[in-house]
């Protein structure tokens, strides 16, 4: 029916029970270290400091500054598009002029999107998860659809777009 059908076939029960756990452990082993060392409390000041000095630099004073953030970087891309750029900041306008993010990590709807004041573009997979209402992970597509209803309008005053890829497990 579709080009990707072969890749979506489920693996056998034996593979799932006896082989997969080993790979899951290995994935945890691979990702845990970098994820710990680049946790938000460590990385957020680095990102904010870089962006502030870039804004303050006379050589780039006239330039428009955009941010693209993929996966790990998505949380900071969204953050830099917000009006206050996080609790440690005193800026009244976003540090960037435009934001693009694909498969953002630690992304919360509607909290994050509400605060974004720079034009925002997102690329998402249908099965990507986000923190809906700050609770447990929830499919991002469902979140976006819920918030596009009448009684809970998607509170956008800045340009906003998203590219959605159905049936993709991860952005």
């Amino acid at each position, binding site marked *: 029916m579709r*080009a990707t059908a*072969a*890749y979506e*076939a*489920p*693996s056998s029960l034996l593979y799932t029970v006896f*082989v*997969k756990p080993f*790979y899951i452990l290995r*994935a945890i082993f*691979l*990702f845990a*270290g*970098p994820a710990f*060392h*680049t946790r938000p409390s*460590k*990385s957020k000041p*680095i*990102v904010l*400091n*870089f962006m502030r*000095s*870039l804004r303050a630099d006379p050589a*780039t004073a006239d*330039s*428009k*500054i*955009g*941010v*693209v*953030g*993929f996966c*790990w*970087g998505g949380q*900071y*891309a969204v953050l830099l598009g917000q009006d206050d750029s996080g609790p440690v900041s005193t800026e009244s306008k976003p540090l960037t002029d435009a934001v693009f993010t694909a498969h953002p990590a630690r992304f919360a709807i509607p909290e994050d999107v509400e605060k974004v004041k720079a034009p925002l573009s997102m690329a998402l997979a249908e099965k990507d998860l986000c923190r809906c209402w700050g609770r447990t992970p929830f499919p991002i*597509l*469902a979140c*976006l*659809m*819920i918030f*596009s*209803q*009448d*009684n*809970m*309008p*998607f509170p*956008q005053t*800045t*340009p906003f*777009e*998203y*590219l*959605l890829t*159905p*049936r993709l*497990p*991860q952005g």
Partner: protein
Amino acid sequence: MADLVRHQYKWAKSFTRCSATNPSRVTTISPYQWLAQPLVVPHAHMSKIVISINPSKARYFLLQHTQQQAPTYAVIMDTVQCRDCVSGAIHTGKPTGTEITYQGLPTYVTRPDEGTPEKGIIVFITDIFGWEFPNSRLLADKYAKKGGYTVYIPDFMRGQSIHQDPAQAFTTFHQVTELHQ
């Protein structure tokens, strides 16, 4: 949680589907039908189809929220295009930029071609594979050459990314998600 269920119900009722062959024909379907459909359009505020790119194949639709103050668009792809789109791959090619120290951080910088005016600056925040990952650098080169931007990829991760063996990480990821077949 009750709120969530209520909203989900409303959401499910308002589902509509864009016909793949005729984007202007929008029909209402049940949630059960929706599960079997490749293309879903949340109709409530997004019914107005502004542009349909390549309408004969109808792979992409650009939709507009009709009741928003600011232009709000959703591009919904009809299907995933290829195997590597699903599984991911490490790109081959030679990045053309240079490594410098910029604003106190080791930074990969790539600039537009000679004679092309610079449109602006893009700060590229990478994924977990870090600033040395070839995919990120090649994409940054594309932004610079085709878009006319100066692109910076700073090492925000202080060298703590998965940079030693991304290939192994990719293989492991495929094995976990069963995409290795």
